[in-house]
């Protein structure tokens, strides 16, 4: 069993960090994991993407051209990665910044207004954690509680619990967005 996701957006959206946190959760569940960044000659503010692979056996190819899941945080990423989602897979769309949808009928599309949710919680920089919460809740690629435990470990050390409180708040808002149907399915 191998599961994959590509997170894609622009530099500064926390794409790489979201992927790393997911990979840590996979590790915590005793799985094989690999985190593969884009490291092409990108400009500051240019595209950024990473792929996370979680498997129950040795991971072969680190390059996955047709990932099971894709989460796009900006429109160029939708155009680049939307066509690559494996048929039957899930395409999550940051609908705060992307006002179009893929025209594919063979995948599930889920909209999550990541920026709106993060801004409402006065934590506009943490759209990646909104996305991570929504992603884990929607796909179950790792357990929600495992992911929560990783957040506690990674953010718990910083600043008297304030960092963890803020991180958890946006993460849980992302979880609710898909579980309570704010992350409306389209079409």
């Amino acid at each position, binding site marked *: 069993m191998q599961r994959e996701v590509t997170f894609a957006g622009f530099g500064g959206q926390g794409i790489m960090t979201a992927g*790393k946190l997911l*990979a*840590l959760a996979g*590790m915590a569940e005793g799985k*094989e*994991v*690999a*985190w*593969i*960044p884009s*490291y*092409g*000659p990108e400009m500051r503010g240019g595209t950024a993407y990473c792929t996370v692979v979680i498997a129950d056996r*040795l*991971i*072969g*190819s*680190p*390059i996955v*051209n047709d990932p099971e899941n894709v989460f796009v945080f900006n429109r160029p990423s939708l155009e680049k990665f939307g066509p690559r989602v494996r048929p039957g897979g899930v395409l999550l769309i940051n609908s705060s910044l992307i006002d179009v949808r893929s025209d594919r009928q063979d995948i599930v599309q889920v909209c999550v207004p990541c920026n709106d949710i993060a801004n409402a919680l006065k934590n506009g920089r943490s759209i990646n954690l909104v996305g991570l919460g929504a992603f884990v809740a929607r796909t179950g690629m790792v357990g929600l509680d495992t992911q929560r435990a990783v957040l506690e470990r990674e953010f718990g050390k910083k600043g008297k619990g304030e960092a963890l409180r803020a991180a958890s708040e946006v993460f849980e808002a992302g979880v609710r967005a898909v579980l309570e149907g704010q992350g409306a399915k389209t079409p």
Partner: protein
Amino acid sequence: MAKKLMKGNEAIGEAAIVAGAQAYFCYPITPQTEVAEYLAKRMPEVGGVFVQAESELAASQMIFGAAAAGARVFTTSSSPGISLMSEAMSYIAAAELPAVFINIIRCGPGLGGILPSQGDYLQATKGGGHGDYRFLVLAPSTIQETVDLTIEAFRLADKYRNPVMLIGDGLIGQMMEPVDFEGRTAPPRLDTSGWATTGCAGREPHIVKTLFLDPNVLEQRNRKMRDKYEQMKREEVRFETYLCDDAPELLVAAYGTTARVVRTAVDRLREEGVKVGMFRPISVFPFPDEPLRQQALVPSVKAVLVVEMSMGQMLEDVERALQGRRPLHFFGRGGGNVPAPEELVRECRRLLGNGQGGR
């Protein structure tokens, strides 16, 4: 200690610390600069030396100097930087000093690009610098193996008093995987007291040099070095086979990241009932000639396919090992492109005559 999620470049830095490296001299270049970033912080914590030199030429000569003084020493760079270091490499090999060089290969030639490649195979295994010398060359394919072979490289450098090179492509440097340092320790240090230049108060001076104008003296040294390389061929051959034990029809040879892509392609072909096996050299000098030949000459094997992120470099070693006794094919990607499992599946099917063609 629990496993840590680490980037290959950081894992190399930590592995060198675990191996007891005392000095690291470097000059930054993508895609391996995180090694320097990591060690700039870590080396001082363990009482080691970290120097970012003014150039690769300087860094490599610092390696020469520190190795001559008996320090456990290493550097990392990427392709164009390794070319600049090649003069010192020849000298360090000539002076029979232990040192470790790590090349996180990017695509070339020239400045090329910064994406992964295996285009420095021939430079690593056949020379690069001038003269009659060899590096012992190891090629990991996971981050854990990168850690273990980095530590091993320091042991082998001491064992042979010869530089050891680790080659990884850019992906090995950039990707993150869980690594375990549990039970890993520094290999015992070679006794350097007979030759290291540590200050000669109270003893005869030690002289480390590479200029020998008397042809007979130099030839003696050439023969001695040749004997070391022969010993490496007997004792240091490393390789892995994957699904080779049930009479495969096609044998695919690949190393490093490419071998991982091949593994995925082999798995997919097996699901379709196509019998393909993989041979992965881990030491590329010494090259596993005999084990590869044995696998290739299994009667069921109709052909051998070499896959590389180059236009065909390890191919020459495979060709030599097979001695023309099996049809040999090649599939290469360049420019920083990593082969995809799908295209390897197509190519294998094509070679076995059952399915649509490859590229």
